[in-house]
């Protein structure tokens, strides 16, 4: 059955070679509405596929643009990857707004509705358990950064020495070594205090969370060069505790030892980090 009405329907909406793209598994209440989202460009309308008592949010997409080679090409193109990820995320978000949802990974594809139903149905109990766990809860992302101060920046070898020696052209070897040492020590102190701050944030947020996951840290290409990420975590928190989270973060930001610490909060998100969607969809 179709759950959208205002989207341009691609060729896959008609008869043609198409495959089944699955965005998420929801339920047991009927998810949606999906009025504000169209799924992937060129695909048919978003549909709900019954998987036992649960619902899979699916779209028929053209086999030619979603073949393994086509996908590989498209997903290594940053602009195209972003488009796909946004389309995927929009549908997952719309589904999650309607009730408990297990988001499946980007590009979860089956050859037909029947294959999708069979594969997802094989993990029915685990889907139900995952849905039970995330019901009434949302994911929040919390990232902690330390902002680099001047004391930790590299001294240029040609910079004037801290105690200028009259007549000397350049920094002496000993002065340089001593400056390296000073820099390394202040860096260690900085790092220790940053990690302590991150621990403090984690402890405070975990108190109100029912689950937490640490993701790998982002490098400078994502964070910018003037700050270093020291924590990248996700928390599963009851929907109604969003304000409490905001208050806690505000209190932490004003705490002693947080002068050069930045805390970024994002959410609420569909529970991407807490449902093992990839495993449940039969991915290796």
């Amino acid at each position, binding site marked *: 059955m179709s759950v959208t009405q205002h989207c341009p329907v691609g060729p896959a909406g008609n008869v043609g070679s198409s495959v089944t793209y699955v965005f998420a598994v929801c339920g047991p209440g009927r998810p949606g509405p999906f009025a504000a989202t169209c799924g992937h460009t060129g695909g048919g309308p978003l549909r709900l596929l019954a998987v036992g008592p649960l619902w899979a949010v699916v779209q028929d997409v053209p086999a030619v643009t979603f073949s393994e080679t086509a996908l590989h090409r498209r997903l290594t193109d940053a602009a195209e990857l972003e488009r796909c990820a946004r389309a995927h995320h929009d549908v997952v978000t719309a589904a999650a707004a309607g009730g408990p949802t297990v988001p499946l990974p980007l590009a979860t594809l089956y050859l037909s509705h029947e294959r999708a139903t069979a594969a997802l149905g094989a993990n029915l109990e685990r889907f139900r358990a995952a849905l039970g766990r995330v019901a009434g809860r949302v994911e929040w992302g919390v990232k902690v950064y330390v902002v680099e101060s001047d004391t930790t920046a590299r001294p240029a070898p040609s910079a004037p020495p801290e105690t200028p020696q009259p007549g000397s052209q350049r920094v002496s*070897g000993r002065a340089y070594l001593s400056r390296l040492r000073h820099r390394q020590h202040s860096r260690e102190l900085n790092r220790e205090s940053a990690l302590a701050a991150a621990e403090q944030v984690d402890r405070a947020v975990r108190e109100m969370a029912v689950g937490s996951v640490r993701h790998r840290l982002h490098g400078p290409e994502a964070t910018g*060069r003037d700050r270093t990420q020291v924590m990248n975590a996700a928390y599963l928190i009851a929907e109604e505790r969003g304000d409490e989270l905001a208050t806690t973060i505000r209190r932490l930001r004003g705490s002693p030892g947080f002068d050069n610490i930045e805390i970024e909060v994002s959410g609420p998100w569909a529970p991407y980090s807490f449902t093992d969607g990839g495993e449940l969809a039969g991915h290796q």
Partner: protein
Amino acid sequence: MSDTRMDIDPHSAGRDLASLVLTVVELLRQLMERQAIRRFDSGELTEDQEERVGTTLMLLDERMTELCEQHGLHREDLNLDLGPLGNLLSHESR
């Protein structure tokens, strides 16, 4: 759009190789720096040795900057993504 794709033209391949080699050199340089600081702290070096070690490290650092400039790279560009282990270089020293 195409510039966000993987590009394997010979020029960029040469640049990638230079960046890889310089990354390894930078790793060794950082390790030497740390080792020198440890010995400096332990007080086992004579003043003369300290002077020489310091001068060597300073020249090495300058040379590294030059090499990066010659290959159109920034020191911060030198790194290797080791997947779940994070990055090879911390770039704590910028």
